[in-house]
């Protein structure tokens, strides 16, 4: 992949996905053409997918003329860590409720983003999530996911 730009890589991936989805529109489940005079559930998506295929090819070809993707290890690592931490946080909300994962996330995320003051991060982690939880769960009555271990939150 040396020399390939981000645009050509993404364009290529979109083209492959589009080709798969376009093929999928011919699955038996969608064959209701007699009832719908050819304008069944995949009539519109097929037009869009055809356009996407052409456009993704154009983007891929145009991308070949662009500068190759530059991978700065530190930046990729930081962005990757932020994505993994956010993903872990989101998926743990369902298992452990809103409050506990939010406290952990609010403490860790600033360090991933380059913050270095432990006391301040700790103060924010111990005050901000409970405040947010109280405002939404108790004042605005947006019932946030609760943990399986504690009745209150």
């Amino acid at each position: 992949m040396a020399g390939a730009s981000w645009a050509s890589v993404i364009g290529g991936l979109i083209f492959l996905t589009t080709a798969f989805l376009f093929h999928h529109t011919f699955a038996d489940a969608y064959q209701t053409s007699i009832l719908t005079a050819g304008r069944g559930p995949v009539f519109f998506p097929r037009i869009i997918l055809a356009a996407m295929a052409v456009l993704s090819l154009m983007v891929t070809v145009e991308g070949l003329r662009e500068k190759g993707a530059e991978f700065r290890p530190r930046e990729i690592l930081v962005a990757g860590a932020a994505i993994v931490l956010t993903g872990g946080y989101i998926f743990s909300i369902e298992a452990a409720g809103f409050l506990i994962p939010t406290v952990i996330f609010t403490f860790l995320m600033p360090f991933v983003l380059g913050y270095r003051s432990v006391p301040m991060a700790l103060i924010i982690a111990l005050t901000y999530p409970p405040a947010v939880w109280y405002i939404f769960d108790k004042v605005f009555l947006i019932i946030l996911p609760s943990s399986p271990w504690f009745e209150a939150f």
Partner: protein
Amino acid sequence: MELFSLGLEHVLTLPALVSIIVGTILGVAVGVLPGLGSVVGITMILPFTFSMGQIPALALMLGVYCGSVYGGSISAIVINTPGTPQAAATALDGYPMAQRGEADLAIGWATMASTIGGLFSVVVLIIAAPQLAAFSLNFTSIEYFALGVFALICIANVSRGAMSKGLLAGAIGLFLATVGVDHVTGDMRFTFGSFEMTAGISLIPAIVGLFALSEVFIRASESTRVKAVIAHKVGFRLPPLSAWKPRLWLLLKSCTIGSFIGTLPGTGAATSSFIAYSEAKRSAPNRDKLGTGEPDGIVAAESANNAVTGSAMVPTLALGIPGDPVTAVMLGSFIVHGLAPGPRLFTEHLDLVYAVFLILVAVNLVMFVVGALGAQIFTRALKVPEPLLMTMVVVIALIGAYGVRGNALDLATAFIAGVGGFVLRKAGFPLAPLVIGMVLSQMIENSLRQGLLLTRGSFLAFFERPIALSLFILTALMLAWPIIRWLRDRNREARNDIKNT
């Protein structure tokens, strides 16, 4: 008149008035902080609106919208870093004024110009929206199809980056919105047997991911950070009336430019402020001094970008077609609150339309007071460390995604959209067409299918209707514009070569 009184009654309630003030203050704060912007601001306050009534919720969102467009000017003037892209042109003259020790005067010019621009655009909205809504009552599904396609192509065409990427992003948005139940036949589409997917991809969580989460990931991937160094005395000083007199024509022209551009799909406040600034550079009384700390530049940029706020609501309220991601989020949240923008809103809920007009007037007046009294306080917000701020944004934005349906699946949608948005932005794709594509997909699909029923399956008959034909011609011109421009440039170069030889 009775409906107007009813609209006034809606606004003159404590929750609505508090929402106007709080929304405007929050909006200015969001605007001041570089990188957050109007869309992230509105997605952040979304969870607060879920338990509110229609009018207070609208007031809060409109306050954040207008306040954020203005707020960007404060950081542009004080630290030479526009809080929002809309305020980039303001920095060109605002910062040199601050360097001369006139930051307070520059903020005074910006606040006054923003307020006048905002109020001007409300007048445009009040005049244009009912006319457009009444005119659109003649539209059939064919005109709506043509209009939807035109709006999407416009947004894809003028978005940052290459046109093909904009069009592809728009097509991805159109496709994503087709996932789930087909509203015409009741069939499942692209759910691959998953029950959770039958409800489709929810718009608000997708927007939260695409704009708020991807912004955090983008910031994480960038090693350089903006450090706010406030070296100037910040305050507020109103320019004397005599200083306004020679600039009235410039002000009127910039307001008109902003209001006109606001009604066009996809252009937005950033484009309008740069066009107004260019026009000021061509024709302003002190054009030679522009870029050196001349108030003309601030007046042009700020009145034009705030003149977009009201006029951008014209197609959103009258047709249900958002012009940019900000109005797309607002359209989504209007629907969450049981309001369906479009011509029927004007015939069935005119009192609510009047309430929106009055809220916008009130927001612009409050914005002036907030700017005058709070400029110094808002600049302190610039000292909040970015990593802490971004972490807080993630938490609040995710509650916004979750709160729409109270479904944990929406959090996963937001996360996937966030990662997708990050990758697409890294590859130079604009995200605005993707969101607008998602919003317009159902309208375009339904009107296409209904139109084909009307014409007994003949797509060529779509071109027999004058309004639709005009829109198709405009769409074709938009698509052909890069080729036309390339041919024009090539001819010009060839002529220059001949001249030189």
